[in-house]
């Protein structure tokens, strides 16, 4: 039966949707006109703001910094799922992220999952993750994290999700996905069972494990894969660990990062997107731009050393506020290979790390400074 009248909320939501739909059709200049007019109307009506939030990106097409905005993809990362009946909280968080992404309008071209879908690499955990991620409306690209791998050395993960290393082209941008969490064998000599090995790797501050590497095989593969590309080709690389060195004790670190960077050096712009660190993390080495992903499970504290200069830290998470510091996000890719990185914090305002901030080496359009810095 059709409702006879629309509630205040329904009308409000409809008006808001129409407002945003219209805005999307505008270029930047007319957007300013419209928003000024809207502000005037709301002020005249004695209202505050038309909505409680502002859209992050509206102007499509050419940008003042040059380069065309090509497309955008969403990201979800680090859900650390246990089995459903062991821990429901982490599963709920991943479901929340999937809902977030499914609500994006227009839908992103694809969703990138940044690794550590499971906590202990168990079949039931990975299957639960696959089951939740199946609800995404757009295609999924997924990367391996160390928590997915070290129980059965990737057997179940590969059965569910395919290759851990691959490359593809999307709308003129070359994407590469690496397995960057390869550790030297520390388990055989100690006679560890698979679960002991997994639990050792799963402890961030566990000193028995070895540093992460990409390894010589993948480096050779990467070199060959990129061979055919021109120096000004846009390249985006996904790696679970940051492809640089922050703090070895927590494996915020890739041991052969220098060698990998040497392969990427010749390109005009390279964007590296990594999981593992569960925080806002930004770095630039030469023309390689690094962005960390937020986790859905829990936020990590910032490492006690090695913090990159460009990183604007996120406000320290509030322990009394469940899921604070967690979230998901979007990445707007430009035709020159640079990105706007949008962190969609669940309990905070979204934060964008813009390409202008990156290309000006932090001089322009920086994200907001934290109002509660780390201790």
């Amino acid at each position, binding site marked *: 039966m059709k409702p006879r009248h629309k509630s205040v909320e329904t009308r409000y939501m409809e008006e808001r949707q129409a407002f945003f739909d219209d805005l999307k059709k505008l270029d930047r200049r007319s957007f300013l006109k419209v928003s000024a007019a809207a502000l005037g109307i709301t002020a005249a009506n004695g209202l505050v703001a038309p909505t409680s939030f502002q859209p992050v990106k509206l102007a499509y097409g050419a940008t003042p910094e040059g380069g065309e905005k090509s497309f955008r993809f969403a990201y979800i990362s680090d859900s650390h799922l246990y089995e459903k009946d062991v821990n429901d*909280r982490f599963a709920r968080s991943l479901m929340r992220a999937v809902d977030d992404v499914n609500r994006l309008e227009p839908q992103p071209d694809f969703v990138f999952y940044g690794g550590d879908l499971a906590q202990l690499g168990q079949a039931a955990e990975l299957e639960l993750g696959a089951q939740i991620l199946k609800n995404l409306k757009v295609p999924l690209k997924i990367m391996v994290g160390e928590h997915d791998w070290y129980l059965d050395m990737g057997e179940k993960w590969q059965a569910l999700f395919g290759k851990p290393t691959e490359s593809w082209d999307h709308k003129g941008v070359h994407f590469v996905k690496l397995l960057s969490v390869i550790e030297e064998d520390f388990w055989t000599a100690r006679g560890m069972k698979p679960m002991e090995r997994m639990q050792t790797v799963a402890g961030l501050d566990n000193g028995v494990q070895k540093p992460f590497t990409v390894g010589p095989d993948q480096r050779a593969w990467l070199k060959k894969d990129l061979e055919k590309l021109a120096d000004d080709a846009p390249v985006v690389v996904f790696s679970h660990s940051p492809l640089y060195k922050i703090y070895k004790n927590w494996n915020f670190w890739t041991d052969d990062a220098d060698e990998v960077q040497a392969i990427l050096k010749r390109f005009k712009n390279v964007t590296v997107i990594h999981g593992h660190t569960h925080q806002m993390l930004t770095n630039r080495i030469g023309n390689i731009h690094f962005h960390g992903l937020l986790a859905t499970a829990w936020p990590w504290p910032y490492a006690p050393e090695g913090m990159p200069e460009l990183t604007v830290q996120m406000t320290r998470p509030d322990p009394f506020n469940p899921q604070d510091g967690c979230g998901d996000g979007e990445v707007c890719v430009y035709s020159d290979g640079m990105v706007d990185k949008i962190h969609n914090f669940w309990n905070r305002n979204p934060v964008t790390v813009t390409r202008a901030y990156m290309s000006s080496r932090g001089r322009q359009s920086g994200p907001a400074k934290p109002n509660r810095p780390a201790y």
Partner: protein
Amino acid sequence: MRKNTRSVLLAALCAACAAVLWATYNYSVAADCDAGIQSVAEVAAGKVGGKGLADAHMDQWKRRNPVRSKDWVAEEKERHKIQPPADNSYLLKGEQGKGHSYGQYTELDILTWSRETEKMVVEGSRIFHSATELGSTVAVSCDMCHPDAANTHPETYPKFQAQMGRVALLRDMINWCIEHPVRGKRFEADDPKMRALEAYIFAQRKGTPLNYGKH
């Protein structure tokens, strides 16, 4: 009834009781040897004697505290970075031992202090990193958010926590975390596990100036 008859009957009753008790005790010791473990509750219900009770308690303690490897301290120190306690070897130098009641310090004193203190901190690290020891119902342990006890800032307590409606000590925040993210049962303030957790968290912030009340 005559007085001496009554005495005889009383004596007989006592003898009977003693015999029953004796038999019960012998039986229970035998039963304990045969059947092995008995729960403390069973023992308390009066089925066995004093030795049985002591054994049952010991047995329960052993079940709750499984045998650790002889090198558990070294093993835990290999797994997790532990800040060492202060070095007190300076006490062995110069005119030490004069003007205080402790007498002469020996190397054994210094060794005992540091070994015992560190052992408590290492025990804290073990609990901090174990969802089982913490009694988590969701397999969550402290280190999942606080690697190397980072971001626990014990130096900022006591401080007023509006969410708790009172001034919180470090142990109140530990218990808050145990009840909420860890979803376990809070520890008493003098629970050995709570004491060990506090010891580990303080130890990891060695060198940080105290700054109580900081938000």
